[in-house]
């Protein structure tokens, strides 16, 4: 295969990854790592580098549209980024010393668990009473729906913050946006409407990934020949995804989200046990 054909195939694949990543709040990264390692037989470290970039492109690209729609909770995103960036820096630091296989297996288990949790809970919760911290940090807000502006309030801010710390560590370790855990923290722990969780998660992924990406760039993880088709493709997908999201309901989103998570989880565990990392 020559470079021209390789780049074009990669571009199309990255577009699909960006589309799915944007629709689910996962970030294009998680789909790209198995794709690059299993299909294109690229070293996991190049895959991690490309995935980090994809996460940033996906996040920044899609966030523009979400902000315009007024779905993203910017204060909440900024507050939780304290946790995710701290985690990401720690993750990038310990990545050098950690056996990636063990982490891959652990991550797979966590993802399958969260996929199961997501499918089981079907109600679109709207809390009417927020916790003390949610008022103190001005995190309660509203978002537009088909039936007009809907107010929501937050619970368990501390719990959500802790999960975000873990999400940051995993992001720094594996180069993924950890969108799954971010959504889990906001959806399950803090009781935020799913659409707000997804878009705010997507908004945060770029900052989280940027916290560890420069370290990886200097370690040589970011290969230009892989980087440019991935960035362009993922971004195209992210724009399409953001447009589609405003027309879809959370239920469809949940199912896509869960299937995507389970798929990635099996991939991670399989690779972990086969020492392919």
């Amino acid at each position, binding site marked *: 295969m020559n470079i021209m054909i390789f780049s074009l195939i990669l571009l199309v694949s990255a577009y699909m990854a960006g589309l799915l990543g944007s629709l689910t709040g996962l970030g294009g990264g998680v789909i790209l790592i198995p794709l690059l390692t299993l299909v294109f037989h690229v070293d996991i470290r190049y895959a991690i580098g490309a995935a980090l970039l994809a996460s940033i492109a996906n996040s920044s690209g899609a966030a523009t549209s979400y902000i315009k729609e007024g779905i993203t909770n910017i204060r909440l995103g900024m507050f939780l980024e304290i946790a995710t960036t701290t985690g*990401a820096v720690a993750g990038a630091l310990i990545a050098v010393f950690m056996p990636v296989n063990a982490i891959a297996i652990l991550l797979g288990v966590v993802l399958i668990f969260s996929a199961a949790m997501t499918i089981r809970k079907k109600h679109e919760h709207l809390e009417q009473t927020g916790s003390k911290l949610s008022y103190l940090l001005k995190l309660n807000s509203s978002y537009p729906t088909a039936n007009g502006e809907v107010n929501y309030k937050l619970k368990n801010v501390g719990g959500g913050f802790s999960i975000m710390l873990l999400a940051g560590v995993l992001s720094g370790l594996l180069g993924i946006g950890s969108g799954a855990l971010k959504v889990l923290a906001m959806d399950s722990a803090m009781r935020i409407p799913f659409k707000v969780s997804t878009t705010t998660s997507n908004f945060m992924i770029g900052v989280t990934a940027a916290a560890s990406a420069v370290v990886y760039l200097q*370690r040589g993880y970011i290969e230009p020949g892989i980087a440019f088709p991935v960035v362009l493709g993922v971004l195209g997908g992210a724009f399409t995804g953001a447009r589609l999201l405003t027309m879809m309901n959370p239920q469809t989103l949940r199912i896509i989200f869960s299937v995507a998570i389970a798929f990635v989880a099996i991939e991670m565990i399989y690779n972990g046990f086969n020492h392919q990392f």
Partner: protein
Amino acid sequence: MKQIKKLLVDRDIELFIGRVLRTGVITACSIALLGGVLYLAQQGAASVPDYAVFKGKGAEYTSFNGIFRGVASGSATEIIQLGVLVMLATPLLRIFFSGIAFAIEKDKLYVMITTLVLGIILFSMFGGLKV
């Protein structure tokens, strides 16, 4: 009335941040596209390098200085990496402008939170953690 005004200011800030993100991403992509097209024009017919083997540090495009030197001499791979750097800088700019926006709004708590996040990322970038 005061409540409505507050809401409007908030929306303006969000839209501005949205514009910052869009500009950053478009710039990054244009640079990466330019580098990519150049790269394909020069090396498109060559066979794909063995990406199954990790080379790590050493190449020009793994350091800030190397990237800028490469761009100055018109090297395709370094132009792509410049696009990558702009891409990495975009979330950073977003945080920076959010901080300014919160300052205009006189939201001290969120100015502090924003500064903290920015500090963590800058520490990661220039703190020499690459080992």
